[in-house]
């Protein structure tokens, strides 16, 4: 009995020691991936280099986890890794699996619901709590030990056409969440909820109220401003030093017919800087004023400190869906560079504020307008990666032509039009943030690629092609060094971590989560590897 009691006490201690201390999110350890982007910066860059360009060709499967959810394109979520457990999602499902073996800890299944099941991008975590946005726009708090629901809050009304897909962002004890839904004319917002109780702390509305700053960019005496869109469906980034969160907002509504909403339509298609304690707007920059092509600006606003044209700067960069790279001073929101990183034909240049100027003749029309790129955009939700060692932003891009039609009769509502892609090809681009030009591009095939990118200090870039081949490329040259086909579309973004001295690469393909690693017992000599990168003779295999 005493033994049992001791065992119980021991277990309880072990449990209470687990979970995620939000302070560690500022500098996560190598054996964790505790936020959607791995850290707050959005760089998706790992300093791990056990797997590097001299040995990546030896990567082999460490384990595979079958979700048995094989609908649609499969896994889109970025797993979290905390205390040796991975947590990842599908629209109605959450799993916890052991990061060393792929063995399931638990599985949570949400009830049937009418939300749009278009994807689920991951979780947020605070102490022992996981935060999960459901297709019908609820926020669930789950017990990370068991997957049991601790609370359930409604974020938005599914009946009106809202849904949710994004991974919440945890900052101290705040859980920041965004929502989706542009088939109907709704309004976007970011909510901050108390991590323990789920109580709403603040809401930032993407659409100003009549009379507030920004409202002058909407027509007066109409309901356009209340129904103007601006969803918030991709996780933002956070700078602890300035205590500002950076978040991209989505397109205005009605989407492809802007005739009922003349003006810039703030704060749609914008990058906004908010105080996470109050929700107060510090600054904004608008990549696509008065968008009519569905080119939202939700793409990850990546932050880093670096040299820009000879000056040390606090930077924010976004490869935006409209095909432009924006380099901003993140203390002010002022544009330092606005340059196309992919082919476009819709803009006549940029204005004094660095905002692209749209050609009205490239607006969607009843007869069809030929525009480059299509509405999926030059990139989309797929995560970019910034490699500080090489000064390169890696982006899955999409070169495409599309015919855009605006065909509403009467007052435009919802999409009020659509586009039809007639041609497309995908690339992984290594973009020099000083110019926006590609140092190299890697052809990913014809169609659409959604995989996202991870880069590492091993001079490696991980992504996938349109066929589902997971690729490891040389960060300097773009040359393929390793690939594997996982049996379906590879849209589950890759992460990496090191546990027990072994570096893992984890990514999703269709309904399977895969872990890859160097053969067990492999020991590399980092110095020799660095000196003789790529040389087979320097590889040493040793059994433990």
């Amino acid at each position, binding site marked *: 009995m005493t033994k049992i009691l001791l065992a119980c006490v021991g277990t309880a201690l072990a449990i209470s020691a687990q979970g995620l201390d939000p302070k560690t999110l500022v500098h996560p350890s190598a054996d964790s991936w505790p936020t959607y982007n791995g850290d707050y910066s959005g760089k998706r860059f790992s300093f791990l280099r056990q797997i590097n360009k001299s040995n990546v060709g030896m990567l082999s499967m460490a384990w595979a986890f079958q979700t048995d959810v094989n*609908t649609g394109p499969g896994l889109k979520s970025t797993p979290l890794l905390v205390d040796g457990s991975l947590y990842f999602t599908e629209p109605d499902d959450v799993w916890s699996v052991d990061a060393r073996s792929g063995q399931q800890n638990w599985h949570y299944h949400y009830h049937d619901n009418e939300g749009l099941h278009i994807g689920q991008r991951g979780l947020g975590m605070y102490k022992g709590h996981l935060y999960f946005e459901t297709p019908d726009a609820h926020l669930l708090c789950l017990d990370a030990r068991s997957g049991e629901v601790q609370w359930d809050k409604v974020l938005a*009304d599914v*009946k*009106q*056409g809202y849904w949710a897909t994004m991974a919440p962002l945890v900052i101290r004890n705040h859980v920041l969440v965004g929502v989706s839904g542009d*088939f*109907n*004319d709704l309004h976007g917002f970011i909510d901050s909820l108390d991590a323990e109780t789920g109580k709403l702390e603040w809401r930032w509305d993407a659409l100003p109220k009549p009379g507030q700053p920004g409202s002058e960019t909407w027509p007066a005496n109409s*309901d356009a401003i209340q*129904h103007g869109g601006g969803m918030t469906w991709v996780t933002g980034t956070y700078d602890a030093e300035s205590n500002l969160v950076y978040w991209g907002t989505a397109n205005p509504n009605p*989407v492809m017919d802007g005739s009922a909403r003349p003006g810039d339509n703030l704060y749609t298609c914008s990058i906004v800087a908010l105080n996470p304690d109050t929700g107060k707007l510090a600054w904004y920059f608008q990549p696509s004023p008065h968008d009519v092509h569905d080119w939202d600006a939700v793409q990850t606003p990546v932050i880093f400190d670096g040299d820009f044209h000879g000056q040390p700067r606090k930077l924010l960069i976004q490869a935006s869906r409209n095909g432009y790279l924006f380099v901003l001073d993140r203390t002010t929101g002022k544009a330092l560079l606005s340059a196309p990183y992919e082919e476009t034909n819709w803009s006549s240049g940029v204005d004094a504020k660095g905002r692209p100027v749209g050609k009205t*003749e490239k607006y969607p029309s*009843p*007869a*069809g*307008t*030929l525009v480059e790129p299509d509405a999926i955009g030059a990139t989309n939700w797929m995560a970019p990666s910034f490699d500080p060692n090489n000064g390169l932003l890696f982006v899955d891009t999409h070169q495409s*032509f599309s*015919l855009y*039609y605006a*065909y*509403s*009769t*009467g*007052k435009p*509502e*919802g*999409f*009020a039009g*659509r586009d*039809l892609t*007639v*041609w497309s090809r995908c690339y992984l681009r290594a973009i020099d943030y000083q110019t926006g030009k590609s140092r190299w591009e890697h*052809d990913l*095939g014809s169609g659409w690629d959604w995989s996202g990118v991870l880069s590492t200090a091993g001079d490696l870039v991980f992504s996938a*092609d349109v*066929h589902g*081949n997971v690729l490891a490329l040389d960060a300097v040259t773009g040359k*393929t060094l390793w*690939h594997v086909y996982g049996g379906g579309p590879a849209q589950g973004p890759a992460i990496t971590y090191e546990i027990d001295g072994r570096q893992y690469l984890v990514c999703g393909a269709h309904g399977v989560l895969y872990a890859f690693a160097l053969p067990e017992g492999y020991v590399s000599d980092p110095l020799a590897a660095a000196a003789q990168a790529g040389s087979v003779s320097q590889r040493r295999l040793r059994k433990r």
Partner: protein
Amino acid sequence: MRTVLVIFLFVPVLLLAQDLDNVSPRQVDSSNVGAGKAQFQQTCGFCHGRDARGASGPDLIRSSLVSHDVNGNLIGPVVHKGRPEKGMPAFQLSDTQISNIAQYLHAQAKVAASVSQRIPSEYPVEKLLVGDAAAGQTYFNGHGNCFSCHSSTGDLAHIASKYKPFDLQTRIAFPSGLQPLLNVKDSSGQTFSGEQVYADEFLVTLRDKSNWVHTWKRNTVRVEVHDPLAAHEQLLKSYTDANLHDLFAYLETLR
């Protein structure tokens, strides 16, 4: 797979409905919707717009209350009591009349949602016909260089009768469905020719003239690619909107 098929079969029915008259009877009882439309336009249309998209009164397609209503259970009380503080009088309508109006509003919301999701396949040709057929013919035989591969009396004869106008226009922009032709020489020197079935960075697959399918690792063979759409790819990048609309107007005359 069956689920996917069912979705594809159903979606066009749902999505092609541009106008209320085309809303599928599977979704709503069209006679009730028709009656609801007439009742709505007579009683409510003056303030809410004849199509319910708002006038001096609110847009009811975007209404939260309407989205939560089931067969008039929320709409009914508003109609019966009115909203005097907002200037809406009460209307004494029967339960059937309320139910019909509710069905009309739900059908209108469905139409708005369906238009949001897909371009109607029965796209009106008059919307597409904004170009100049004579200018299109000049482009075809001149700057566009179309005549070097196509002929209005040969492969394109009666082309406008073969394709729906919308499909014809998108095929002028870029025709899909033609696979590259491949010549593959393997390590023994044997050559294979046929239509590409699959190609990525690592593998190449073709179907030969005898209908056999062959796959090779790319780094073990030499592959020659003849893409019949290469010229169209160049053309796509040089088209102006006027070129495209003129060409469409011209090809639309080839009936």
